[in-house]
């Protein structure tokens, strides 16, 4: 189902635990790496790989916010909205990105380039305001630095 390297990685991860189902969170990241989001096939396949029922995988995917069951843009922009970032202007950052991309919160641009999300505390409170693009952190962002960042992402 997955690339040879990822299948090998999954095999290895499963050995970390006395029960297979413990590998579900790391396994779902592999699914997202392969398909951009967790597809119906991923759910079925991982259920079979980890000796789970399909609904057991589904209930995990829907509980944890870092997994998506729908396609997302190539660059998932997640702006932290929680207190420390709010105090230093997170709302303005989000509004700026909305205008720039012509795309609302939880929406994807028509060209599939960007998905914009507001998320809760990312743990960069002393480096606020912050945002993540996929797994990359950007700290102390300003409207200007965000412009440069987004213009550079194809």
């Amino acid at each position: 189902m997955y690339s040879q390297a990822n299948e090998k990685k999954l095999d290895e991860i499963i050995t970390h635990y006395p029960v297979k189902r413990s590998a579900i969170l790391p396994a779902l990241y592999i699914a997202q790496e392969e398909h951009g989001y967790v597809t119906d096939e991923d759910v079925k396949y991982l259920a079979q790989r980890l000796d789970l029922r399909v609904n057991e995988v589904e209930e995990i995917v829907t509980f944890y916010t870092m997994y998506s069951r729908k396609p997302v843009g190539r660059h998932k922009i997640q702006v932290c909205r929680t207190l420390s970032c709010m105090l230093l202007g997170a709302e303005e950052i989000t509004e700026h990105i909305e205008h720039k991309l012509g795309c609302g919160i939880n929406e994807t641009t028509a060209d599939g380039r960007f998905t914009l999300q507001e998320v809760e505390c990312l743990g960069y409170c002393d480096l606020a305001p912050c945002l993540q693009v996929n797994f990359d952190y950007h700290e102390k962002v300003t409207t200007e630095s965000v412009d440069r960042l987004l213009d550079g992402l194809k």
Partner: protein
Amino acid sequence: MTKVLTNRFHLLGGACDIAVYEETGGYKALPKALKEFKPEQIIDEVKKSVLRGRGGAGFATGMKWSFVPKESKRPKYLVCNADESEPGTGKDRDLMRYDPHQLIEGMIISAFAIGSNASYIYIRGEYWYIKEILEKAVAQAYAKGYLGKNILGSGFDHDMYVHPGAGAYICGEETALLESLEGKRGHPRLKPPFPAVVGLYGGPTVVNNVETLAVVPHVILNGGEWYKALGTEKSGGTKLFTVSGHVNKPGNYEVPMGYPLMSLIENECGGMRGGRKLKACIPGGSSVPILTAEECGKMTLDYESAASLGTMLGSGGVIVMDETTDIFETTRNVTHFYKHESCGWCTPCREGTRWLYKVFERMHRYEGRPGDVELLYDLADKILGKSFCALGDAAAMPVQSAIKKFREDFERRIKTNLVKIQKAAD
């Protein structure tokens, strides 16, 4: 001021390389612990240090370890809680990305003390690059014989794994974390039994915060009494504080326990941004009761001082707010957080946080009804102490303390009051 945990921070990640860590005094405590200490002596030494859990609850670490039964049919586990997600907190992030081996060494010693042959570092999924730093560091530790079979010829075996979370604040609660690690939704478990008796996969388990475990090598090298003497009688040692908000130099600072809060703001953080006046401060992450500027002047950074002011040291997330801040809006913000992060398991928290936010929303639009401030307080009361785990309390306490101390910021949001204010202005 003596620093214990942040001495390698200036290398900005250089100490991720095991050679650099060793050259700067690393992996000296582990051989000492394995050769010169019996497991129960390590626990005693940690008890002497008066080290208290740095994740938020502040439970005595040595005591927690001593609850683990010596004999167990099921394997024992050590779990490092690196799911740092308390708003205002980013200290474990730097402890892991700047000095991962300090944590790993602390974990191996701690595992030896409780007799555990396997440990997991449960790190929040957003910290993906730090997960990779830890994985590399763990691999280096294996290559050097600090992990694996018969560590340094001691006969002690230990395996360590890094496990990613996936964006759920509740998984910082230790029993929810264990559920998550077992591959389930992160719902908290009923206690007792406590994890020390029945934890991961049913085995006795110790769950400790990153900072707590990182202290352990220093206690072994220098002694529990030494560590304790760095702080106060009841709050031993030093602690990391993440300062965020309206200060000139936000950041992570390690100071001795008992250090005055205002000194941290004035000295380490270079004072208030723009020379403005301090209005309020949340001293231990968004879950703990807020302090007025006057209370901040009385607060020293230790567990007793926090308790005497009706707040908590929590995770050490110090959120500083100046005179331009509307405490209604900041409280609405954290209420949104708890509404979003409530795991849905118990009714008071699941429904209560939604009701709270609903009232906050109409007040935000200046459409508050007479009695809404009392309603918020009462709703918080219906959650406080009545939810399954501490997340409910964490949602309720900020609301109640903010209303008590900054009531005018809330009253302004009631529609009829606004009319009065506008009339007075005309």
